[in-house]
């Protein structure tokens, strides 16, 4: 087990290094540099040269990359080229905001999708099952920027105005303010993700409910409620756990869109900003944070898998 964990750790590290190289190379293949974008249509050849020199963009690519790696190793994550601030100072707030958004979305997805999937499995083939499946598919077929916009217009518009249209409030401003800004973005993301998890929970559970050990439990006289909750669900959840872990990737993509629509300052908007401004140090760190989250979450899912199903052993 220990060997497995160390191995997975090393492979995650390797993946992150490769990603940093790919991101770095990709941003340099794109036309223009941070200097062209900072100066915009006010650039002159002299100011471009001076700025590229100041930003260190006149050095060979490999040197720039190694300098960045050197910084990271010594704990210096670099300076944002466009915002002229330490990347760590910029990322902190956005990371907290996105983490809150992602965590609440995951909780919402689990709280909504697993019960719905369970009900659908138990009522398989009946109208409730059909209604749940249709409803969840409706959610997945509408992209976040459409559902987000609709939520804003209906629930945040001048007539109802139950929630703020966008923006964020720090936790220090009070739990109520903080949460009220999160409701709509979380809802927009949840609508899309619920369908996957409902379907996996449902099919996983249906299979388990047909298995011999469930039949044994029934013959022993256990109530249906006890059978589903105590015996079937734990095994039936395995595919759902995998899907939730994979959905994290989808969630991060969705976050980019949702944060832009809701004017919510998080990692997604930051990544978009970094790309638009060729802000390589900022982009590197932002992408690495997202990639690390994703790989570690998948690792976590594997561990959870082993816990849910003791037959699975990692070596």
């Amino acid at each position: 087990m220990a060997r497995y964990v160390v191995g997975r750790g090393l492979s995650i590290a390797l993946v992150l290094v490769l990603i940093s190289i790919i991101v770095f190379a990709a941003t340099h293949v794109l036309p223009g540099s941070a200097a062209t974008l900072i100066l915009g249509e006010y650039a002159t050849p002299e100011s471009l040269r001076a700025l590229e020199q100041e930003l260190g963009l006149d050095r060979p690519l490999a040197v720039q990359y190694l300098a960045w790696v050197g910084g990271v190793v010594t704990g210096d994550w670099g300076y944002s080229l466009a915002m002229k601030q330490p990347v760590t100072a910029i990322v902190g707030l956005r990371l907290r905001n996105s983490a809150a958004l992602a965590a609440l979305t995951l909780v919402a997805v689990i709280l909504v999708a697993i019960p719905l999937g369970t009900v659908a499995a138990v009522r398989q083939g009946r109208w409730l099952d059909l209604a749940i499946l249709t409803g969840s598919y409706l959610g997945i077929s509408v992209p976040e920027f459409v559902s987000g916009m609709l939520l804003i217009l209906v629930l945040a518009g001048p007539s109802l105005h139950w929630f703020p249209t966008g923006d964020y409030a720090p936790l220090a401003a009070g739990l109520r303010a903080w949460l009220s800004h999160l409701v709509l973005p979380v809802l927009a993301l949840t609508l899309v993700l619920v369908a996957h998890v409902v379907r996996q929970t449902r099919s996983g559970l249906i299979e388990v409910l047909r298995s011999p050990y469930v039949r044994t439990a029934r013959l022993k006289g256990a109530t249906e409620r006890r059978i589903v909750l105590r015996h079937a669900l734990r095994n039936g959840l395995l595919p759902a756990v995998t899907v939730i872990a994979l959905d994290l990737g989808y969630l991060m993509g969705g976050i980019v869109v949702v944060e832009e629509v809701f004017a919510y300052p998080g990692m997604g908007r930051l990544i978009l900003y970094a790309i638009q401004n060729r802000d390589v140090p900022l982009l590197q760190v932002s992408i690495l944070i997202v990639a690390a989250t994703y790989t570690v979450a998948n690792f976590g899912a594997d561990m959870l898998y082993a816990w849910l199903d003791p037959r699975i052993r990692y070596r």
Partner: protein
Amino acid sequence: MTGSRRDFLRTSAALAALAWPLTTVGAPARAWAQGDKQGGLLRISATFGLSTLNPLAHISGAEWMATRWLYSNLTRLTPKRDVVPDLAESWTAGDGGRVWTFKLRRGVQFHVGREVVADDVVATMQTILDPKTASPYRGEIGPIDRVEAVDKSTVRFTLRGPFADFPAIMTVPVARIVAREGLGDLKALAAKEFGSGPFRLREFVPGDHVTVERFAHYYRSGRPFLDAVTLKVFPEPATELTAFRARETDMIWDVSPDLYPQITATAGANALAVPGGTFANVIMPTDKPPFSDNRVREALKYTVDRTAMLAAINGGQGELANDHPVSTAYAFHARLPIRTPDLGKARSLLREAGHGSGLSFKLFAASSPPIREKMAVILKEMARPAGFDIDVEVLAYDRYLAQVWNKGVPYIGFYATRPTADAILMKLYHPKEGLDEGRWAPSHPEAIHLLEQARETLDVERRRRSYATFQKVSRDDGPFVLPFFRNELSGSWGYVRDFTLNASNFEVDLEDVWLTADAPRKKG
């Protein structure tokens, strides 16, 4: 000298007054006591910008707006386009406009807690001019040769040549005066401020929002009325509009023309529109065929139905233009009949130029701002019946900057209002002081000379004549199709009082602005 400057100011004021009725301002219905005006939080929204608060490096409207609150300039531009004192109390020209001396107001405090003195002005200007600073506007603050402090409150600029508009140029966003202790670390200036403006920085989250609060020791006593101002970026315009309509914001800045009618339709909101000098133009490089032949340029100019184009792109919000950049917002605008579309004439001009069977060329447009792409696509359709076959290529802004902009190919340019006609003309046509994107200067030295002459004399009548001739030459022979100037559009709720939208729309002057008691955040 002062006489001619006054003349110039009077002219600009008179011209701006013509545009005045278009501006909607919530006028107080009764006399308000000073105390009623005090206090409150004003929330403004924009859709982009706000990366940095460094006045030496910022290039977006939202950033210019924010530094206007934090800093002061030597002079400032009123909505009527008068140049009035800010940190400088008065100014005089010497040596025929080559030497400008500014007398500073005494006792003005920086937010860092000390008096603004001549050395701060000198240090700020020298930092902008230092090539190492890589300030985007190094070339846009006049031909400064030397700047020195005569005494504690007198600054003298010696220019490379006479320059009549120098006091007006000192109003531009880059010429904000920074306390000299702030100039040591230019990186830090991105998120800190060292200004003497009506507000001081409370919080800045780059790319998202900035909040400023009332500076109690501002030199205009009793101003500003507002306790604080927040400027927030909503990347999605539809969200921005909903936030405004739900009164989560009090003012929506720089609204796109397709959303503007919704503000007009919102009860209780003021739709603000003011004629400015902002435009998009088709740049035709004249140093090589086909556009080296003026008949081809003229033919293209004749294909454009300017009224229809303005209606399609900007909902009719704007004024028609004559293929040169001097709008009625500028003092030296010359009234020339607007060119009317004439496809027959365009066809015969093309034929004369040897393109009887038609002419095809590629026209590039960046995807941002949207006006560029719209103009390219509409021009393509308007010019087709005359024999032009335009292949429009739309590209992302970064690619546009790196591969198209100022590279001698036809593309759609975009320019914001400048403080003076000289500033926009030099930027567009002069090969050294500006860009000459049309590569037009080498073949038209006499026209360029007119511009140089006009900026070098303090004689207003002579200037007017030079600029008038130039506008005619540019209309008939120039390298741009420039069909219209768009109005600057914004919106505010009726409870926001005494705000006037400036033709330079980023000059959001909030010193006199106040909130009535029914404003959502009157209590802060």
